[in-house]
């Protein structure tokens, strides 16, 4: 756990998260992420061998409801938030890059 995170790892993590880092940003974030990971080392001091993890503290379990369709009737208001709309549809660039690079 205590090994410092490398530039290559940060670059990989950024790509998993759909983020790109410039050449200036990569060392900056690598350094910071290394320091942040450093504080996690203290958790190694804690014996959790017989401890169950807690992922949520809600007192609700398996909340059921009827499966009913609900038409909000706000198609136009929704589309007003879309960056690029054509004929009532949201437009995106091509999925496959056709520019050839």
């Amino acid at each position, binding site marked *: 756990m205590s090994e410092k995170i490398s530039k290559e790892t940060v670059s990989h993590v950024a790509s998993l998260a759909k*983020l790109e880092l410039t050449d200036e940003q990569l060392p900056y974030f690598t350094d910071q992420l290394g320091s942040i990971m450093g504080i*996690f080392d203290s958790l190694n001091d804690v014996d959790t061998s017989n401890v169950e993890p807690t992922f949520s503290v*809600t007192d*609700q379990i398996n909340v059921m409801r009827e499966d009913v369709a609900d038409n909000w009737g706000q198609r136009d208001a929704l589309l007003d938030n879309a960056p690029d709309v054509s004929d009532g549809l949201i437009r995106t660039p091509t999925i496959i890059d056709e520019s050839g690079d």
Partner: protein
Amino acid sequence: MDYLGKDIFSIHESLVNGDITAEELTRQTIENAKKNDEDINAFVVFDEENAIKQAQEIDKAGIDPDNVLSGIPVAMKDNMLTKGVLTSAGSKMLSNFKPIIDGTAVAKMKEAGTINIGKTNMDEFAMGGSTETSFHGKTKNPWNLDKVPGGSSGGAAAAVAAGDVLVSLGSDTGGSIRQPASFNGIVGMKPTYGRVSRWGLIAFASSLDQIGPLTRTVKDNAVVLNAIAGKDEHDMTSSNKEVPDFTANIDKGVKGMKIALPKEYLGEGVDKDVQDAILAAADKYRELGATVEEVSLPNSKYGVAAYYIIAPSEASSNLQRFDGIRYGYRAQDAKNLEELYVKSRSQGFGDEVKRRIMVGTYSLSAGFFDAYFKKAAEVRTLIIDDFKNVFQDYDVILTPTAPTPAYSLKDEKDPITMYMNDILTIPVNMAGLPGMSVPAGFSDGLPIGMQLIGKPFDESTLYQAAYAFEQNTDFHKQDPKMGGAQ
């Protein structure tokens, strides 16, 4: 309208007596808030048109003499969905986003007759403790314009402290209601996880986020929680536990109450003035008939490390939805879909959000899940068990809210120092407990807050303890003189 020295009950009386109409009150409120905002920048946007219209409707129907919230102007944090009104979560990513619905807490406040005058500034996606990471510029602390207002609900707290409004709603994932309340000398409540619906709150860390009120007085706070608490079919984690009237036992005092003072929360890193204020508060409680005894919460010190794995992990998942396609910021120069995602996210998110997304992505990635995310979740169990132990013998836990008063806006801040500032508030979110900050002192003219932590769904006892303290001290009666320290 300047709300310094006032509360919901005094304004309600003026409205009922007809000294002022809801419309006049709303107009004057917005006028005063806009004037103050030239100094503090607490608001991202004002919603004058809807506010006036709503006030006119309330005047037409008549102020309900039995509903103290009828016609009271309020403000909403910018990560809470407001129908047709900008909701940006302090981010460039959502700087043009207008929701098609009101979130449940916003809707409930409207049903209760309050009038939302605008959206308050915050750290981007609620990730921060100083409101410095907002896309809309920094907010300043009304007590001293060179200081931060805290965060992430910094605008919400500054707006109440400056007398812009009597009530704002904030959200709290690791201290984001309580710490700004402390820095601004006001009352802030983070209710039990599940007490208030999160429907329509832009998600940061779903197992930790909770909405709550920031107010000038304890009783005002209880009145507002009455209005927003309860089961909501849109949020499956909202609790169906009965919602009591939080004002019912508020004046019952603390005689015989058992208050715990955890020694770890008064240790190294906590300012001397802050320590002294909390020890003085403990003495005040003893004087009022409570028992105050030292206890230990040994695993709380691991809270920051565990939190900065869990919260970023949940955030990295929650923030995947921002892809530039259906709403929000879209990069202009993308050649294909993949590039559109990457460029929109890289240009739309600020550095702190990117840091946390990357930490979270790393913690959840193959090969690291057990060492990071699972380990943090196990430590979370130990933190919860510590609280359970103490609450077997005590009614309330008393601690400082933050290790220091508000710090400078100018200092260069590194992430680690910022994260460590949350050390006293984070364990409460990890355990899902109710926690509130109450004015408890001053240091060089800057407010100090004390934190009261309660058993799950026992906000009533917190309000009771907080009210007893407030009624026997005068910290809440002091007001900022805008523009400089006292």
